[in-house]
């Protein structure tokens, strides 16, 4: 590969367009408002795509190495049903149920050990430690245990999600201020009353923090697990197979879907968070 571009026209054009988009972002960023918050990142992303397209075309990069965004876009448009099938398998059947089960189980365990400081003191360091482990290493084992279909993917996601969630929920349950707990005590509130009316609401910012971390983990877990065995559809399956077939445009199409799904997933959690923890200083307008 030479450093001198083969088609410098494309490069010049792309650079120009990039500059224009960039300048537009800079100007817009000075303004205030909701629309700006949305438009600027979109422009920013667009400017990167333009640069990418320009570089690929200018140096005539082989499509088996890095396809141009336009090629990827065409592939996405042409492969709707396949992409949907993969999405359904990996995200809807693997990641989402795993996420829900993992988070739910963490919640249940957190409540169960809530009354035992002893168990908490034991489980928290262990949980913190496990949360830092490369759990993905368990993927081949879980595929062996739970079979090829989505169950094993969900299992990987459950394991990956469980500990970060547990740690966050337990921390959240301890997050209420002493003054707030004392108030409950002066009213003679029971454990359950205190839990429902004080500690759970106070824990929500932590819970959502955990959910956000878990949402990206869930996606990675579900996709990686497919590398160790899967039916012949699914995002991880498609990615690994198409790399072997040099179908790089399809690989990028799946990556785009994954990024989109991940962002929507994350955005959804952030939205619910806004609704539930509207009172938290970080959420107030």
């Amino acid at each position: 590969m030479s450093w001198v571009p083969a088609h410098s026209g494309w490069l010049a054009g792309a650079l120009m367009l990039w500059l224009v988009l960039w300048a537009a972002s800079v100007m817009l960023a000075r303004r205030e408002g909701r629309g700006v918050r949305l438009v600027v990142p979109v422009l920013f992303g667009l400017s990167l795509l333009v640069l990418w397209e320009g570089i690929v075309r200018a140096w005539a990069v082989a499509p088996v190495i890095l396809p141009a965004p336009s090629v990827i876009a065409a592939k996405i448009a042409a492969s709707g049903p396949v992409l949907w099938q993969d999405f359904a398998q990996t995200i809807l059947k693997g990641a989402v149920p795993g996420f829900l089960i993992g988070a739910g189980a963490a919640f249940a365990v957190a409540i169960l050990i809530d009354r035992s400081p002893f168990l908490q003191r034991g489980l928290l360091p262990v949980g913190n430690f496990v949360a830092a482990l490369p759990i993905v290493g368990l993927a081949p084992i879980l595929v062996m245990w739970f079979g090829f279909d989505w169950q094993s993917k969900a299992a990987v996601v459950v394991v990956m999600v469980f500990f970060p969630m547990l740690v966050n929920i337990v921390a959240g349950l301890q997050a209420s201020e002493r003054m707030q707990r004392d108030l409950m005590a002066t009213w003679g509130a029971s454990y359950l009353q205190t839990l429902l009316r004080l500690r759970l609401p106070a824990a929500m910012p932590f819970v959502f923090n955990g959910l956000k971390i878990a949402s990206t983990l869930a996606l990675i877990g579900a996709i990686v697990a497919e590398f160790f065995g899967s039916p012949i559809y699914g995002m991880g399956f498609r990615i690994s197979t198409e790399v072997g077939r040099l179908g790089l445009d399809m690989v990028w199409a799946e990556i785009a879907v994954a990024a989109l799904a991940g962002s929507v997933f994350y955005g959804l959690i952030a939205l619910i968070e806004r609704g539930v923890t509207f009172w938290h200083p970080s959420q107030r307008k």
Partner: protein
Amino acid sequence: MKDTISQNQPVIEAKGLNLVFQTADGPVQALKDVNLTVAKGDFVSFIGPSGCGKTTFLRAIAALEHPTSGTLTVNGMSPDEARRKRAYGYVFQAAGLYPWRTIRGNIKLPLEIMGFSKADQEERVQRVLELVELKGFGKKFPWQLSGGMQQRASIARALAFDADILLMDEPFGALDEIVRDRLNEEVLKLWARTGKTIGFVTHSIPEAVYLSTKIVVMSPRPGRITDVIDSPLPKERPLDIRDSREFIEIAHRVREGLRAGHHED
């Protein structure tokens, strides 16, 4: 007849109270040999430098801390029993409102916990909101109100379930002097109207003198009572009373008491 008896029966009675905290650096004697009798309808202020045990004593009364030795009775029973009988309304320095509940929701909270009926809850919320002049603010969230209003809401919350004893730990410490003046006047009115027994912690000498029928001066390391002053001021107290000779004399005595017990830190 009954009224007179209960008038004379002490509401709070501490005898030889000691309270020691076990900390990593060794024991801390937060209260040492504290003796105090508070009668029904008293307005008792606790004043003293930081760390002298004011908060600890108030918490012990509300059964939030347990004395190491000595006896402490509230309405003739143990603080724990009194708590179960809903004897306390407690107001902390910061308003301590739950940010996820509206003002109305915050005031309702103790009522829900104590199992008041829905109708009764509504009625009481209305009443105390009026009492603290926050009518119309029930649907706001705490952070949408100024500091003074928040503090009034937290007082309303403590009043809603009609506890005998109102304990306030530096309720106005975070407010500016003018707002504080007004709230002081309102607390006095409230006290006059309801006849509650009030325990009040403050750092401000004028505030203590202006409000109280009894001023308890405390001193730290170990936390103990150095002076108890029964105020000769009348029950009716306009703000101007603070420029009167009597007021200034009591204030002087309190200041002297404080200075004597105050070590350089």
